[in-house]
């Protein structure tokens, strides 16, 4: 107290805190009002509904207000707020400012809450008699989410983390004398800034898309729970169906955008690395896809009701679990990009437990009404194969979840398990066979009719696509030669999945766009599988270092090459040359030129040049960002793995020599330098002292050294070690052509080794980069697949919406 701080803008924080408290209490009142509306049917039917809507409106405005206010604070650099200081800086470009908003946990909870508000508004407008039960669940979710921003502390219990906390009140800084100075703000130069890896356009659109996908999983769950609560245990499926597919489309695209970001901006060389954070968002998508498909079955024949309810619940709970994994800091050692712990673990567990228990209790309470009609699906029915597909997706989800949860298992049981040493290989060995089955089901399932179909008819219809897939995959196999049988199987099944859906679209649907959603989406999935298979299995690291010594079985891969400025090296079918670097702001651009030899003229022809980046960032560490040249059939990816950044560190003397490096050598030893190698081949004890202008009683020994340059030209030098009395000194010998100066500086009588010092001219050491280059073939199939999947799902949602309007 007492201290008057200069230059702070406290009014914004106060307003923000009002919004936060309002959003929480309004959500609570709205949830309760909707609950009263659901359970007190015989009174005035609208009385509670009105209050619920008004409080929802207040809640929605408050959440929007928090978003707007926080963005404003970031935009205008109010560093007195910890969140602003932590996640942004004055040097940040405006286009990345949104990314600051969701870099921190509070911000990402906020975005998630905001999307729930948007989706809930749609429910209120279109929901009719579903409004109250669905909104009751949605508002319960909002109560939990809004509490994540409260930032209240009762002793050791912490509820939420407030994004409007002042820097001088934040626990890490509060007791510093610096922030107690009235004018501390003027001495605060800049914010800590946005993580350089996130300064990428994908990071502006990927997180909000992913969170919209997360938010979308809440709606079918809320419909299922609302249906159970209001004894409409079957009716909820129809209105929830478009929402489930909406979630499939948005979450799917959100996950793939994350992959695109990883491929473009991260350096792990690929778009999917089975990283825990990626897995955490993939798993709810898998179960949601399963859930949406069994809902289709249920709509058709009334079965699979249990699976519909359970899968939608599981998808929603898994979204919470994924948040728990990434936000609690539990992933610690296993993930590169896990968030730090804000102490909300307990809150997240409570959140998960509440909704899990609610679902279990409701399902048990209503179990009598949930019984399926007694007919079992026939093996030749479409629903049977769709159901099998769902099972395979669940198996896939189970495998990913268990392996990703190793740190959680460790915590619960006190074990010390680490992820498999080659985690990618482990996941692939499980997921590849499952992908083969899924692709097969995508190809054949729709050719079966609902209820029961004629086997020979199905076979006849599938024949065309089967044969064309055989031919196409034969061509691919001839070209690529896949290393394992399961690769060939996935190649064939994914191509068949594509041709079968194309055939279905053309011959059975006769190109009718309105009904084509599922075919298009499945063609997309088939292309994603195919593109992932080819670009991963057939990816080719072309930057192999051929010159290396064999390092034994532990060090088999030499995937980086050293490239001196101006040199040209052969790499795969290309020749690469490092032209130079250029500094632009915080980015160092390294220009790498790719050439091909023209066999006719024998000349080198430039193909393209790439500019991978090293972004300089003192606080968070420099990061390097790859650069990729795109062809229709393949990408060439180039990445700087190491570069000498601190130039001019080694000072040169007046002759232009850098500090000499001492080498302990014995006769016969060879040392490699940047432009030559030198061999100490003989110790010369018969020095002609006169020619060296030495005294008669000096002790002098020469080291005969042979220097070989890169063109195999040889030079001979002899530096001399002299002991005059008890003072040692050396007579240097130079190879002027190579800019090398040799000295013979010490003799170690114990080991019999001699110290030869070598100084190189500054002009000798050229700039170099160590880089990695990978060819990803056919990766465009994957991106095309993403777009098709999105379009197809959208067409399917439209069809469902039109249907639900008609009824």
């Amino acid at each position, binding site marked *: 107290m007492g201290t008057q701080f200069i230059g702070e803008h406290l009014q914004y924080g106060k307003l923000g805190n009002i919004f936060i408290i309002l959003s929480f209490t309004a959500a609570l009142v709205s949830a309760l009002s909707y609950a009263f509306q659901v359970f007190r049917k015989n009174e005035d039917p609208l009385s509670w509904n009105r209050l619920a809507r008004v409080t929802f409106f207040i809640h929605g405005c408050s959440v929007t207000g928090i978003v707007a206010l926080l963005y404003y604070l970031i935009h205008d650099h109010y560093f007195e707020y910890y969140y602003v200081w932590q996640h942004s800086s004055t040097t940040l470009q405006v286009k990345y400012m949104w990314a600051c908003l969701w870099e921190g946990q509070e911000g990402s909870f906020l975005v998630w809450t905001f999307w729930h508000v948007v989706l809930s508004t749609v429910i209120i407008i279109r929901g009719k008699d579903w409004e109250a039960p669905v909104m009751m669940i949605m508002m319960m979710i909002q109560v939990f989410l809004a509490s994540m921003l409260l930032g209240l502390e009762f002793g050791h219990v912490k509820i939420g983390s407030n994004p409007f906390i002042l820097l001088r009140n934040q626990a890490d800084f509060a007791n*510093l004398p610096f922030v107690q100075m009235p004018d501390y703000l003027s001495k605060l130069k800049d914010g800590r800034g946005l993580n350089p890896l996130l300064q990428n356009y994908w990071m502006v659109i990927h997180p909000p898309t992913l969170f919209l996908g997360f938010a979308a999983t809440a709606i079918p769950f809320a419909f299922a729970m609302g249906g159970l609560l209001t004894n409409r245990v079957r009716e909820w499926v129809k209105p929830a169906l478009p929402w489930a597919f909406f979630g499939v489309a948005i979450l799917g695209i959100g996950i793939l955008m994350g992959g695109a970001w990883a491929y473009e901006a991260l350096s792990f060389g690929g778009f999917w690395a089975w990283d825990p954070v990626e897995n955490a968002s993939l798993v709810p998508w898998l179960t949601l896809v399963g859930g949406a498909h069994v809902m289709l079955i249920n709509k058709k024949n009334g079965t699979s009701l249990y699976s519909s309810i359970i899968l939608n619940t599981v998808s929603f709970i898994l979204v919470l679990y994924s948040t728990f994994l990434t936000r609690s800091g539990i992933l610690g050692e296993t993930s590169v990009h896990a968030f730090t712990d804000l102490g909300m673990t307990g809150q997240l567990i409570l959140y998960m437990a509440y909704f899990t228990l609610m679902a279990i209790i409701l399902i048990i309470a209503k179990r009598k009404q949930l019984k399926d009609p007694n007919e079992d699906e026939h093996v030749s029915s479409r629903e049977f194969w769709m159901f099998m597909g769902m099972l395979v997706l669940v198996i896939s989800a*189970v495998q990913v979840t268990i392996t990703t949860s*190793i740190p959680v298992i460790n915590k619960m049981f006190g074990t010390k398990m680490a992820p498999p*040493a080659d985690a990618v290989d482990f996941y692939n060995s499980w997921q590849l066979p499952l992908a083969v089955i899924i692709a097969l089901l995508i190809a054949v399932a729709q050719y079966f009719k609902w209820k029961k179909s004629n086997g020979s008819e199905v076979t006849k219809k599938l024949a065309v696509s089967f044969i064309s897939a055989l031919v196409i995959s034969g061509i691919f196999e001839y070209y690529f030669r896949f290393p394992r049988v399961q690769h060939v199987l996935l190649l064939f099944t994914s191509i068949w999945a594509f041709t079968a859906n194309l055939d279905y679209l053309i011959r059975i649907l006769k190109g009718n766009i309105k009904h084509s959603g599922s075919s298009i989406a499945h063609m997309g999935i088939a292309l994603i599988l195919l593109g992932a298979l080819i670009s991963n299995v057939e990816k080719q690291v072309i930057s192999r270092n051929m010159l290396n010594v064999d390092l034994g079985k532990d060090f088999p891969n*030499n995937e980086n090459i*050293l490239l001196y400025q101006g040199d040209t090296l052969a790499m795969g079918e290309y020749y690469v040359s490092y032209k130079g670097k250029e500094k632009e702001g915080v980015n160092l651009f390294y220009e790498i030129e790719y050439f091909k030899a023209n066999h006719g003229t024998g000349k080198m022809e430039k193909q393209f040049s790439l500019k991978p980046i*090293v972004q300089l960032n003192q606080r968070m560490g*420099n990061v390097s960002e790859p650069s990729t040249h795109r062809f229709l059939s393949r990408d060439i990816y180039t990445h700087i793995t190491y570069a000498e950044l601190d130039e001019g560190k080694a000072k040169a003397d007046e002759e232009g020599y850098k500090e000499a490096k001492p080498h302990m050598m014995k006769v016969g030893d060879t040392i490699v330098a940047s432009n030559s190698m030198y061999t100490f081949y003989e110790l010369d004890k018969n020095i002609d002292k006169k020619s060296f202008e030495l005294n008669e009683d000096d002790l002098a020994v020469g080291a005969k050294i042979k220097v070989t340059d890169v063109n195999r030209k040889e030079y001979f030098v002899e530096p001399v070690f002299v002991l005059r009395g008890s003072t040692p000194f050396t007579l240097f010998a130079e190879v002027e052509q190579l800019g090398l100066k040799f000295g013979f500086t010490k003799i170690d009588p114990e080991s019999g080794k001699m110290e030869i010092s070598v100084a190189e001219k500054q002009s000798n050491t050229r700039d170099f980069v*160590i880089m990695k280059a990978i060819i990803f073939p056919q990766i465009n199939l994957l991106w095309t697949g993403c777009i098709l999947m999105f379009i197809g799902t959208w067409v399917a949602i439209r069809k469902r919406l039109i249907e639900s309007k008609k009824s």
Partner: protein
Amino acid sequence: MKKIHIIGIVLIAVALAVIVSTVSESSTYVTFGEAQKNEGSTYHVIGKVNLQKDFIYNPEMNANLFGFFMADTTGNEVKVMYNGSKPQDFEKAEKIVVVGKMEGPEFHASQVLMKCPSKYNGTEEERTKSLTSSN
């Protein structure tokens, strides 16, 4: 037998298979001493890099071999050789995890994971510095 039973059995069987395969394939977090006892098997070791000792990195000779000294959680220091180029900003890592095996006195790592400091829990001076220095 009803559909739900078949599903249940299949799921339980798969979950068991996954657990068994995960446990058998999983590596373990150990110290260098424990890794030494089982030379040749793959482990994860958590520790800190000794910045006092020089790194071994000679890109002119071999761009794919990087060596450093690292102390595990018990303070036992071992030379680690990594098959790859020197990770950018290796000096700044607060804590690292190496995946690989012991070969004689050396640890041969196939992966090096770095954890950079994300919290401001240094001394008072360091925390003040993080406020006053610009990028």
